[in-house]
């Protein structure tokens, strides 16, 4: 039983009186508990939409048009299955209730999900806070009294309190300073590993993904263009987009005097190019790329790439 299995997933939004594809034919999986799958891509490529679908939180103008998402063999879209999936969002302030103390919000989960007594739930809440590196006295603090990093830790504590079968974290640290981001991320990574919770980690930052994840899926224009374990992805990126992306990020560890430029900009839903969706920006595009959409091809013992250069 895989913690996560996504097959042939198509998600559409209803905009301007029609359904448009935002996520197209996505196949992804998580093989074991505690495994972290990073979904990496630029803004608008469909990462959040994919994450919301997995967490069962798609907005009302969205639908899953085809394919399925299974968590431990249970279909997420079927209402008869109750699956506990925790989602951690970027904006901690809006994810927390400003009128309740931190303790009340964490305890609420135990009271609601596990029918715990109020008193016991508060004791548990203190333990959770300690687990995410916060003083237990924080139970009586309100969200606005906390720094961005502390709020994000509270969200992590709440996610874990649910005892979830899967965590979806959508750019949980982009609003934080780098030093705070580093601390929060390492905490999250080490906690899910320790507790054996599978996690989807959504980010636009390949460098972060390289440190957090086990596997990386590179997303472009609604599709996964390359999917691999992180070591081979960085050592031998196969897809021209992955290759270009890797050489277009400035680095802190080595001096780079020139950045690789990917010409143009990513396309938006409703106007994805024919053929390979990356072809207008691809330096290696050839005639086939203009007319035929590449299908995912297995290239190593693990993962796949969506590009005509590979078959």
């Amino acid at each position, binding site marked *: 039983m895989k913690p996560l299995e996504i097959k042939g997933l198509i998600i559409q939004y209803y905009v301007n009186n029609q359904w448009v594809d935002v996520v197209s034919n996505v196949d992804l999986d998580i093989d074991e508990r505690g495994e972290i799958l990073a979904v990496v891509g*630029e*803004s608008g490529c469909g990462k959040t939409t994919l994450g919301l679908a997995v967490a069962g939180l798609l907005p009302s103008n969205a639908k899953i048009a085809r394919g399925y998402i299974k968590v431990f063999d249970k279909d997420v879209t079927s209402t008869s299955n109750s699956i506990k999936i925790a989602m951690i969002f970027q904006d901690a302030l809006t994810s927390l209730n400003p009128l309740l103390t931190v303790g009340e919000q964490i305890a609420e989960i135990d009271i609601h999900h596990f029918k715990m007594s109020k008193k016991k739930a508060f004791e548990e809440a203190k333990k959770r806070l300690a687990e995410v590196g916060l003083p237990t006295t924080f139970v009586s603090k309100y969200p606005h009294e906390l*720094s961005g*990093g*502390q709020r994000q830790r509270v969200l992590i504590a709440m996610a874990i309190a649910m005892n979830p079968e899967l965590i979806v974290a959508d750019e949980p640290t982009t609003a934080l*300073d*780098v*030093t*705070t*981001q*580093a*601390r929060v991320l*390492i905490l999250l990574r080490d906690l899910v590993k320790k507790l054996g919770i599978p996690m989807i980690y959504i980010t*636009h*930052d*390949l*460098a*972060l993904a*390289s*440190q957090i994840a086990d596997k990386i899926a590179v997303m472009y224009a609604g599709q996964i263009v390359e999917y691999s374990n*992180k*070591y081979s992805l*960085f050592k031998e990126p196969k897809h021209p987009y992955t290759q*270009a*992306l*890797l050489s*277009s*990020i*400035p*680095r*802190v*560890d080595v*001096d*780079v*005097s*020139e*950045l*690789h*430029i*990917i010409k143009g*900009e*990513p396309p938006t839903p409703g106007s994805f190019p024919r053929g390979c969706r990356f072809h207008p920006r691809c330096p290696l595009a050839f005639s086939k790329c203009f007319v035929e959409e590449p299908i995912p091809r297995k290239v190593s013992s693990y993962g796949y790439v969506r590009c005509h250069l590979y078959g």
Partner: protein
Amino acid sequence: MDSRILVKTEKLRKYYVVRSKILKRVIGYVKAVDGVDLEVKEGETLALVGESGSGKSTLGLVLAKLLKPTDGRYIFKGLDITWSLPKELRSKIRIVFQDPYSALNPRLKVRESVIEPLIVQGYSGKEAVEKAIEYLKLVGLNEEHLKVYPHMLSGGQRQRVVIARALITEPDFIVLDEPTSMLDVSTQAQILQLLKEIKIKRNLTYLFITHNLAVARFIADTIAVMFAGQIVEIGEKNNVFSKPLHPYTNSLISAYPPPDPEAIWKPEIPEESSIENTTNINGCRYADRCPYAKNICRREEPPLIEVIKGHKVKCHLYNLI
């Protein structure tokens, strides 16, 4: 004074007044910029890095002449412009902000936005438009873009328009406040590369504000690290990155994940803190967070010491670290 120094500040300060909610009495100050001595050479890119709230934007606004300092001196091209800016220098200092969405008036076409600084200078409409086309081309856009409204452009295109508008007055000095932090990876690379090329073509001098050290390492010649309103380290970029002298710089650099799964990421980061609880300290402002702090650090403010030529640090214990 060295004629190649374009921008120089001495003990520059900017304090924001904090007033009580009801009676509006002065109850304190935020020392956003607190005694900054800087020199930026002609043609140099100085990257100003530091965490949120450290005072980077405030210093940028003061240097762009959009905010009056509380005290200190600001010398531009050898002239003291602390309290007033001669008319002929107004076009020579420009600023580009982080958010290209709010930097452009949504009701104005690109044409109006870009030519506006020239019209202020008394150019005729025709001359101004000709020049606008030249500058749009310089930033990788074209004549067609004159006719469109900002909402019809992508984030990257908008930032190009904003840059064209800043360049059109032929400035010598541009303050860039996080110009790429709202852009995507691929767009960021385009804009950074563009800024680097234009700088050389037009012999510009940049103050580049960013909280992203990787971006700073790419764009800058010199790195200045700001903490709680002060410059705590400044030096040639490769010196700063390969041998950071201040514990704060070291923690910032170590916080960045290397884009390489084989590399080990081991951030050395002390406890969280914020500018507010460091304002009353007599000694080093970093002492509360610093893992190396000794008594002297809490007692005495360290001076900015030049350790090797051009590489300065504000730390008592830099040679022990």
